[in-house]
């Protein structure tokens, strides 16, 4: 797409160089992780190009902590949260967008509170609540505070509001009840928003750390982030070869997913009209 104001000649070269330098700088940690993970420990601080490659760091990392279980926990966690969010957020957004009932605006304002006051800052109280509910140290406990997502409600309400009423009425005339209208008309039309939201939600919860750290205690419920931190905690002497191998292992799925789907990623953000 040629842009009217695209730079040419020398300025363009300078810009390209600048952008590339920044790009390389940005990738540096990942590059370093790749270097260290694939070379023996002696080369973790020395960058000798002829150093031998090895996979033993990955073997050691995989054996040193139950990463398979951590993976499973994290997958269960993000998909459960996402599934619950999709349901709750859709229903709530539909209510706000298309129904008139007393207290609606006040309730919406209360919902928006969660935009600024995330469960992350309420760790002390939420921890006590979870204990009272008897849910401590479960995957459900990690996800529950996030399932009613104000961000999602806000986004979807906006999107639902832009759906033409004629479609709504047409479906009604055909005999659909409100829920059927929701499922048949609103949900498909909000698809890009759902995709964008899902991407944000998955990456957020895949990387979430502090709350899962507090609420989980055992291997059976720990997600990858907590498992990784416990594994690499500094007191035992930092062995970067193994830590970076573990890092690559835990980051690989998201990285791969992004590599494969980056175009859709950006496009869904565009279409979602989040601006």
């Amino acid at each position, binding site marked *: 797409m040629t842009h009217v104001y695209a730079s040419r000649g020398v300025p363009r070269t300078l810009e390209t160089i600048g952008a590339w330098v920044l790009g390389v700088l940005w990738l540096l940690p990942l590059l370093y992780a790749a270097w260290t993970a694939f070379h023996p420990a002696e080369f973790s601080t020395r960058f000798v190009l002829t150093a031998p490659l090895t996979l033993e760091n990955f073997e050691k990392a995989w054996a040193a902590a139950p990463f398979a279980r951590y993976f499973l926990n994290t997958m269960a966690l993000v998909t459960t949260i996402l599934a619950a969010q*999709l349901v709750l957020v859709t229903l709530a957004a539909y209510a706000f967008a298309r129904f008139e009932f007393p207290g609606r605006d006040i309730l919406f304002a209360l919902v928006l509170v969660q935009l600024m006051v995330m469960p992350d800052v309420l760790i002390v109280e939420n921890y006590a609540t979870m204990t009272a509910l008897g849910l401590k140290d479960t995957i459900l406990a990690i996800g529950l505070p996030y399932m009613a997502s104000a961000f999602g409600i806000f986004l979807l309400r906006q999107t639902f509001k832009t759906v033409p009423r004629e479609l709504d009425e047409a479906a009604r005339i055909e005999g659909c009840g409100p829920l059927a209208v929701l499922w048949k008309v609103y949900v498909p039309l909000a698809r890009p928003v759902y995709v964008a939201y899902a991407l944000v939600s998955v990456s957020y919860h895949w990387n979430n750390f502090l709350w899962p750290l507090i609420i989980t205690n055992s291997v059976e419920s720990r997600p990858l982030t907590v498992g990784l931190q416990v594994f690499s905690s500094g*007191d*035992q002497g930092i062995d970067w070869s193994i830590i970076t191998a573990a890092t690559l292992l835990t980051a690989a799925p998201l990285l791969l997913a992004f590599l494969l789907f980056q175009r859709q990623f950006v496009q869904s953000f565009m279409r979602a009209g989040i601006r």
Partner: protein
Amino acid sequence: MFQKTIRRVFAFAVATLALTVLPPAAQAQAPVEVSFYFPVAVGGPITKFIDGFAADFEKENPGIKIKPIYSGTYQDTITKALTAVKGGEPPVTSILLSTDMYTLIDEDAIVPFDDLIKTPDDQAWLKSFYPAFMENSQTGGKTWGIPFQRSTIVLYYNKEAFKEAGLDPNRPPATWKEQVEYAQKLTKRDASGKVTQWGLQIPSSGFPYWLFQALAIQNGINLMNATGTETYYDKPEVIAALQYWVDLVKKDKVHPEGIVEWGTTPKDFFEKKMAMMWTTTGNLTNVRTNAKFDFGVAMLPAGKQRGSPTGGGNFYLFKKSTPAQREAAFKFVKWITAPQRAAQWGIDTGYVAVRADAWDTPIMKQYVAGFPAAAVARDQLPFAKAELSTHDNQRVTQALNDGLQAALTGTKTPEQAMKDAQREAERLLRPYKK
């Protein structure tokens, strides 16, 4: 259609969630289960060793299932243990810092081992531990902790660097004065004046109080009283000890500036970034494996006297456990501290085997004969004192940590830093002085 995708997301969620939930639920009539949290504070495949211990014990005791849960650093582990206690689901036992004893008692989390120590054999077993390690394990006439991974601080030094500097590689520094002199000879600078090798490195991140306590003891004073209700941070000898450390950085210029990271100190040693380091004897096997040069281990140099705090973790018994679990846990603790095993654990890690008869076992004797450095920490035991331990231990210790870091980064003078720390400690300990 989009709806299909949504349905697939749900199916996936349910499937993965089920996978995580079902297997434990499928477990029917289980044997007595003893779960315990354990930290790792030294290099090496410690988790593997602990798992190995659990497996071996289970083989000999089929009715008991041991569940070790690795939980990070000592600080992480006490956090997790107390979290579990407050949540109503504590482990049966755990390896926690010996200094957490008062905190655990105050939180009503643990029970003493005395009720389980009934037979004469058991009593002999209890008496076999080194008294230095029992100082942080007993209070009020009861035994609350059983020593397991205990240590003292030792001085590791690079023998090749000694030779290069014209020092006798078999004669490590024995006094504070010698330590400074040696360090000055060992500090190498390049043409531009930048230091390429420091003389001495004492880590100060995370828990500088432990290393500092050695300096205080060497200067003739310990940091707290025996019942954990008073601290002595602002006594002149303590301030003088801190001044010695600060001088190493500022005056003698043989020690790196700023806060030195505990976790990277062994690596710094391997990389020859310094010639002498203070760290736990628990890193001994790690150093032996990874140092590609001849190195020595020595007792810490004497100020007015030799000295080091003890360090490391004890086994504790948690209150909310069934009698069967307590018996099982007690059995495990006795098993794991048997002379043979204590010796093997000491050899594999560098921790001090916690009982004298462990040092008399053939494997240990052989090991020490071939590697005399292994006995240094034990030989230092007569000079070892109890580690800093008070009520509200984490917080009282943190006050000291902050003060030490302030002095080492030059924000406060040693005197000011210690006075502030003492004030904070007194405020925290007031409710416990009854």
